[in-house]
């Protein structure tokens, strides 16, 4: 395991904007946590109800079968299997259905065939679920099919789906944010952070299309900071912490690694994740990460060109080595 450490977490006076971003994120996490738990409980409860999930799965299978052209061959195959009586596929579709906006929007008025009692029951529960989602911070502030405006491109960056998600994003915000802030200034950092987050949301919507499941988290913005840092310190050895899972002295500590290696590892993991996962299943928004990273590179390139035009020198040479 290798993690960039750079200068670690600096004091507030050394990187006030990074701290400010952390405080806003933490405030949002604490303020929305109670509502998040309540709403999430309602959703989890509904999704644990086999009857609800199975009914939803069989109606979703019917819907896909009636709208073959709007679904991938894989989803069509799943629908075919579900309609042939494969109970596992019915359940799987039941779990995936809530991600599909078209289905959820049309379901209440759609003339589903078969079990009308199940339909009535399911629609009632779906309505309750919709109400729970209305209270869910991720659905209120995240980017989803119902919330695609620019306001949400900003707000989604400050909402997290849980403490672990929050903790990981904040660790990397401090690692890259503190360093970059001392390098490019607080205002520039803020612009890069928010800009990367917004372009990450745009990339997600462009590649994945609008989904009912909301996009949340600071990872797109943090990816932008990481990419900018790596671009500016392309060949500079940066301080990283490593631990090799060997419980013997000498096999953990700090090491200096060129920034391009960090960038390569980060992008390879996101690109591999994106290419290796099924878009229908959701999960980590790799495309948002990639959008953030592209923003970081573009901003870095612009800074490089501007600096070069102004001084005729490489920014890289002027900058102090990371330590």
């Amino acid at each position, binding site marked *: 395991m290798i993690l960039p450490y750079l200068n670690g977490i600096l004091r507030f006076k050394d990187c006030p904007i990074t701290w400010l971003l952390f405080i806003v994120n933490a405030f949002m996490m604490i303020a929305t946590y109670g509502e998040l738990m309540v709403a999430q409980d309602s959703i989890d409860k509904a999704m644990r109800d086999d009857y609800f999930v199975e009914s939803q799965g069989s109606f979703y299978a019917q819907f896909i079968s009636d709208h073959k052209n709007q679904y991938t061959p894989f989803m069509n195959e799943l629908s075919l299997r579900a309609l042939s009586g494969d109970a596992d596929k019915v359940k799987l579709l039941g779990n995936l259905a809530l991600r599909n906006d078209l289905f959820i929007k049309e379901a209440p008025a759609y003339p589903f065939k*078969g079990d009308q009692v*199940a339909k009535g029951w399911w629609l009632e529960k779906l309505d309750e679920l919709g109400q729970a989602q209305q209270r869910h911070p991720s659905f209120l502030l995240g980017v989803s099919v119902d919330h695609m405006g620019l306001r949400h491109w900003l707000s989604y960056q400050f909402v997290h789906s849980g403490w672990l998600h929050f903790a990981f994003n904040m660790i990397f915000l401090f690692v890259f944010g503190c360093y970059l802030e001392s390098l490019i200034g607080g205002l520039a950092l803020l612009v890069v952070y928010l800009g990367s987050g917004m372009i990450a949301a745009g990339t997600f919507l462009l590649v994945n299309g609008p989904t009912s499941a909301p996009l949340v988290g600071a990872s797109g913005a943090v990816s932008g900071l990481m990419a900018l840092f790596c671009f500016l310190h392309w060949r500079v050895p940066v301080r990283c912490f490593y631990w090799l899972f060997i419980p013997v002295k000498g*096999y953990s500590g700090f090491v200096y690694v060129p920034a391009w290696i960090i960038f390569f590892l980060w992008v*390879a993991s996101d690109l*591999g994740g994106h290419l290796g996962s099924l878009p229908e299943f959701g999960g980590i928004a790799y495309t948002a990460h990639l959008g953030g990273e592209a923003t970081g590179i573009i901003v870095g390139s612009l800074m490089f060109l501007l600096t070069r035009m102004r001084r005729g020198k490489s920014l890289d040479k002027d900058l102090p080595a990371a330590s």
Partner: protein
Amino acid sequence: MVIEDQYAQKTTKEDQSETGEVRHRSSRLRLASPLDRLAAVIVDLFLVIFPVSALVGAPFKREIMKALILQDETEFAFYLVMITLSSGLVVIVYQTLMVWLFGGTLGKMFWGLRVERLWKHRRPTFTAALLRSVFWLFDSLLAMVPHLAVFSNEKRRPFHDRVSDTVVVTIKNREARSPGIIEASFVHGVVAAFAVFMVIFLTFSSFDYYLDAKSKDPLVSSLEEDGSLCSSVGEAAEDWPTVDGETPDRLQVAMALFAAGEVAKSCLSAEVDLKLVREGEESPLAYLAQSFVHADNAELSDRYLARVCELAPDSDSCKMSEVVSLWTEEKWNEVESIFGALDKTQEHYIFVWAVRHYVRRGDFHLASKYLEKIEPRRGLGSFLGMQRAKAYWGLRRLEESRAAAAVAFETLGPAERIDLASWMCYEEVEASCQGVLQKSCQLLEKAVADSGEFLLDAKVALSYIKQNECRKGYGKSYDELARNIPLVPARRLLFAYNLRSKDQVAEGRQVLWELVNDSATEEEFREEARHLLVQWSTRAEDLEALRNDWAKEKQNQNWRKFGLHLVRGYFELGDYQRAFSVVEILGDRIYTDQKVGQQAILAAYHLGKRQEAWGLLQKLNPAAPAEDQSRRPASADSGEFEMIAQGLKKEFAGK
């Protein structure tokens, strides 16, 4: 094949003739530490091999996920091979190039390690580097076990180093010595243990696989693979009677089998899904079936029942749905009038439910009437055998009942066999202690001796206690029985028996009273306790004390059931006055039990209250049988009742 370590045999070969440019190995080897080598591998894995493999193999990973979800074994195998090959290729290309060009991978360089030719201070040739990386991969695929040779080989050269004639050395001050005898022996032991484990594991796995493949019927296998439909329904459907020349619907067959307790709820659910999901057809029968499938969820089940009649108000399914609702409300008279109206139905599942209903309610005349309507078909044989045995018993056709039971014992599964045996044995010993010699009691005794787990069932435990009670002096002691039966209420019951056997009847009755009023106890034990409590109150004052306690209790189901026992108790003591006074308190609640209803009429008649007796008779549904007859002996001869009822009709009818 064993690749000998030539270095171990010929300690130095630096004097071998080579061209002048070659730097011969003139000093001893500075062997790399195994931990450094491990650390280098970890660095390589995390920095290069995992990320690049994830990237290269991503499209295959996506296809593997699809194949897994769609259970497409061919696609899965193909893409698994592809992802393995692509990852293997990454490993081979990376290691070969790095070792050939730089004498070590990034991880090795980081830890100051180098791969060198065995005889010279030089990087390996391309061929040697390629050979080394191929065999490194091969060693890794064998759960990394061959790599353990770094702890046992004299020059710490695992298989891939020996094949390519290379050695890993350090350029830092962290050189390792050759492994000692203990270190080497330990690793040899680990490798040998691993090999033995693998051989045993593979042998057992193959044997298991062979047995599994051999035991599976091809038809069953194909049905199992095909989906979730139960083969038992399909097999029964083939042998089912046609209705108006048409083969029966699978769902109808499944409903009958489910009603008979021959298939699980999941089988019925699968048949409903076939109808509602696959065929997308609404049908009253499918909704009725859904109400059974979702019986645990009262609200949902009620919605299905309501939907049955919305869809087809005049159908047999609608009437059956009303029966199901009335069962819940315990409106037995209305249930029975609907069954009466369904007399002409062709639906087997209705007959099966009717049989179960009437046997449970103790109306064995009607039960046997419906039994005759059910044609013997595959899948229903066990049900018919069991119910015939019970119905004949109820009709006092004891020998026919025993004969039917004897046939059923041969065909029933273990659980049903013990269920029927416990029922029969209970009835036998209730009628006479000679019953312990009957086959049912012997079967029960043997089954319990073979597996004490049967005694976890309340009905079985009760029958077992009952028959043991009949073996007085020859059976087990109460303490021994209590040790055998794990159910707590059964032990409390035995404790009461034990007290009674020591002439501490009052204390025994107190234990029973507590058992009766313990709402957490299974109903079978509470009913037995009520029965015993009244039976053990042989003196009028004991019964009176019981009546006083009962009168103070909250008027609930337990109170009503106990009241019915009190009526029986007083009636059997000939105290018609008190019997009738309890009847007056119970009111219309006595009609849930036909026998008590009859006794109430007789008591009123004997007290000279002929007008009241006629009133009771008018309210008594002649079809309403004794409650909870599943655990009670069959009704006593009701000749006297018939005679008095006729007299009352003559006297009052038409007035």
